[in-house]
């Protein structure tokens, strides 16, 4: 009997349109072969652009946009999909092979109730009657741990949380009793505490229904918790494939070892004996006439050190950064910057104050003007604050490019011609060009691949050593906090629930929320997921 899914020597091409050039055929996936047995879960792992999603979708004989499957074979129970007629393919998609997308919010139609969308494929494919499909959906809602399974389907997508929506989407995929589900980064967009619940629900549902799955993720620890086997991809080629335990404990390929080590960077904690450069006392702020989103925040950041602000989305950590920059004026409280009180509004601060505090954004794509070259982007603060123009300005830009480990050849490029990590480095150089004392980093590495993120973090640490920079580092990633912070503030619902030196904040005894955050960070070792779910003191609210 043939395996459920057999992929042999898969080759996928895409058409690209280089600016000003002729359309180009490029091979994005090459030489992929694997088998997937019934009821097994294969984890596809790799950086963005490694071809994970493309391979996942090829199991439904689907290519996004200009993507074409140009060679090899994809067999579902021995049946070749690549030569199947569109009619046959249609009968397979949504019935025997289903897909769970990364962003459930974008995958649900906001105008229809959840139930209707969850059962749609099953009913349309005439796999079951509407009543049967409803009954199955309710059962799946229960399996996935959704609240009020009987009535959950009557809600609209905007009435449930992100984690619940992701589980509803899993229910939608499971409803027609498929043989294979493709999970495309289903928990990547979720908070760490929510991710844990959704992950556990997905794992439970896979085991209950006996469905096989391709689980795509860039997070090795997440894949290690749900998959039986792991396939490591890089640049569209197979790097390594094997059972989870072997890949994690005894990786054969150097690239896999790099991925495993990606989190290991950092510096020892330094004692807070330097003078205080940035200090907040009882700061409150909110949007419009709404409630305070930042309540009563106080901290002190010594020169040359890093304060990590950690919390889930909606905890007010980015709003706090906006308060510090003056974009969101504080309603009350006092911010002191290098000994002088900082006016709450951006417009009231003078140019020199603005220069000394810089901000690095999470997404470098939107933080760099696409119509300015790297030289213009980095050169502007030099000209604006220091009056450095022409030859001298250019020389300084080159110097900065070297500091961010890039070099002169990038000076005339546009942001579109840079990789994600390079863009973030340019954003760092733009901040550096102002010669600041404090840099606010708003999740600067969370949109980057693990290895690239590690490089950017190491760059930030190096710059801190060389220039005695102080960082306010906003993140949701405890691993980063462990690596780089000197002091840590844990935020929840706009309040600071825990604050102190790293060694105290990340050591027991914990308050319930910090405990929840720490226990939710995915770990590699097998069985962690079950232990973590069992050992929580506090259930994550509303997901």
């Amino acid at each position, binding site marked *: 009997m043939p395996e459920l899914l057999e992929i042999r020597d898969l080759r996928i091409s895409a058409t690209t*349109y280089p*600016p000003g050039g002729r359309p180009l055929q490029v091979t994005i996936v090459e030489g992929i072969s694997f088998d997937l047995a019934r009821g097994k879960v294969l984890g596809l792992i790799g950086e963005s652009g490694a071809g994970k999603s493309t391979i996942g979708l090829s199991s439904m004989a689907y290519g996004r946009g200009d993507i074409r499957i140009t060679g090899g074979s994809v067999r579902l129970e021995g049946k070749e999909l690549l030569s199947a007629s569109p009619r046959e393919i249609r009968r397979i998609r949504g019935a025997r092979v289903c897909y769970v997308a990364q962003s459930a919010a974008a995958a649900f139609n906001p105008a229809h109730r959840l139930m209707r969308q969850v059962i749609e494929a099953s009913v349309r494919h005439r796999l079951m009657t509407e009543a049967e499909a409803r009954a199955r959906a309710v059962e799946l809602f229960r399996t996935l741990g959704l609240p009020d399974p009987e009535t959950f389907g009557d809600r609209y997508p905007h009435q449930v949380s992100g984690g619940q929506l992701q589980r509803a989407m899993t229910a939608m995929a499971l409803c027609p009793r498929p043989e294979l589900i493709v999970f495309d980064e289903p928990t990547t967009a979720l908070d760490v505490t929510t991710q844990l619940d959704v992950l556990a629900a997905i794992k439970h549902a896979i085991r209950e229904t006996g469905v096989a799955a391709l689980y795509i993720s860039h997070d090795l620890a997440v894949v290690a918790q749900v998959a039986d086997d792991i396939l490591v991809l890089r640049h569209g080629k197979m790097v390594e494939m094997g059972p989870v335990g072997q890949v994690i404990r005894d990786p054969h390929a150097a690239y896999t070892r790099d991925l495993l080590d990606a989190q290991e960077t950092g510096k020892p904690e330094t004692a807070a004996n330097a003078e205080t450069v940035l200090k907040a006392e009882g700061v409150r702020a909110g949007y419009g006439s709404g409630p305070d989103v930042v309540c009563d925040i106080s901290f002190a950041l010594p020169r040359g050190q890093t304060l990590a602000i950690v919390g889930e989305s909606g905890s007010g950590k980015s709003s706090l950064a906006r308060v510090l920059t003056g974009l969101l004026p504080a309603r009350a409280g006092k911010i002191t910057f290098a000994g002088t009180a900082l006016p709450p509004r951006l417009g009231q601060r003078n140019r020199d104050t603005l*220069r000394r505090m810089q901000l690095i954004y999470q*997404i470098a794509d939107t*933080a760099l*003007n*696409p*119509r300015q070259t790297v030289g213009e982007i980095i050169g502007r603060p030099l000209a604006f604050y220091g009056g450095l123009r022409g030859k001298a300005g250019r020389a300084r830009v080159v110097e900065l490019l070297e500091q961010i480990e890039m070099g002169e050849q990038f000076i005339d490029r546009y942001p*579109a011609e840079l990789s994600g990590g390079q863009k973030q480095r340019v954003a760092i150089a733009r901040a550096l060009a102002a010669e600041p004392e404090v840099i606010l980093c708003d999740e600067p590495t969370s949109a980057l691949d693990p290895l690239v993120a590690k490089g950017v973090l190491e760059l930030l640490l190096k710059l801190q050593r060389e220039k005695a920079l102080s960082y306010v580092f906003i993140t949701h990633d405890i691993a980063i906090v462990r690596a780089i912070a000197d002091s840590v503030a844990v935020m929840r619902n706009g309040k600071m629930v825990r604050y102190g030196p790293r060694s105290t904040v990340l050591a027991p005894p914990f308050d319930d929320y910090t405990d929840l955050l720490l226990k939710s960070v995915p770990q590699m070792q097998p069985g962690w997921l079950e232990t973590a779910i069992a050992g929580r003191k506090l259930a994550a609210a509303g997901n």
Partner: protein
Amino acid sequence: MNALRLPLSAWIGLCGIAVFAFCALFAPLISPHAPDAVMGGVWQAPDRTYLLGLDNLGRDLMSRMIYGARTTLAVALTATVAAFVMGVVLSFLAAACGGIVDMVLSRINDVMMSLPTLIFALVVLAILPQNVFVLISVMAVLGATRVFRLGRAVAMDIAVMEYTEAARLRGEGVWWIVRREFLPNTLSPLLAEFGLRFSFAVLFLSTLSFLGLGIQPPAADWGGMVKENKDGIIFGVSAALIPGGAIAVLTICVNLVTDWILRRTSSLKGGRGDA
């Protein structure tokens, strides 16, 4: 090499515009006769001397077409440029300053847009002295309201981008933000709109001339020429169709070129989809 990659449609458009522009620039040199001299009989049929025949007063249609190109293009172009300068500057200011500035400018614009264009133009032109300056001003103000709407919409998208926020945090002034952050990033929709607005300006000018409020006789312009020769259609004389056809060809050519510019510049953006 670069020119060879132009799509056929853009070539056609560019050639058409070049021919019209050539006529407009060198009208006195290439026109065979004076545009306002009576040469022969009313609606005399085309022959070797008068390639397109004569018009309703016996003037050479070919010469009037060539001089008409000059008037029509110059007035429409000036009005469109003025409309863009006004519309873009005000809309970018509204987007960059926000708050009360945005509110006041936008509401004034809404009021202007709620008046039917043609009625507004007819009333104003009937009151004010009929000269080219007033004509261009009226067309520019009316065009600017449409440009303002588009300009504000596209600039708002850029105003919320983090690179604009980064410029504000740096302490940059409104003028720098408008010039260096907004303008380069809104250029492609604005260029496309420019082509479209220019076509509309030609049509609008022709409409006004046809109604007798645009370019005043004896000066030649295409809309006016359609009006002068429209009665000939009853007698089977096609003289009115020639300026009408020229208006159609010009607007199509301009649109072919703007379509191409829009495609080209949007692919320059890098980023998503087609790049």
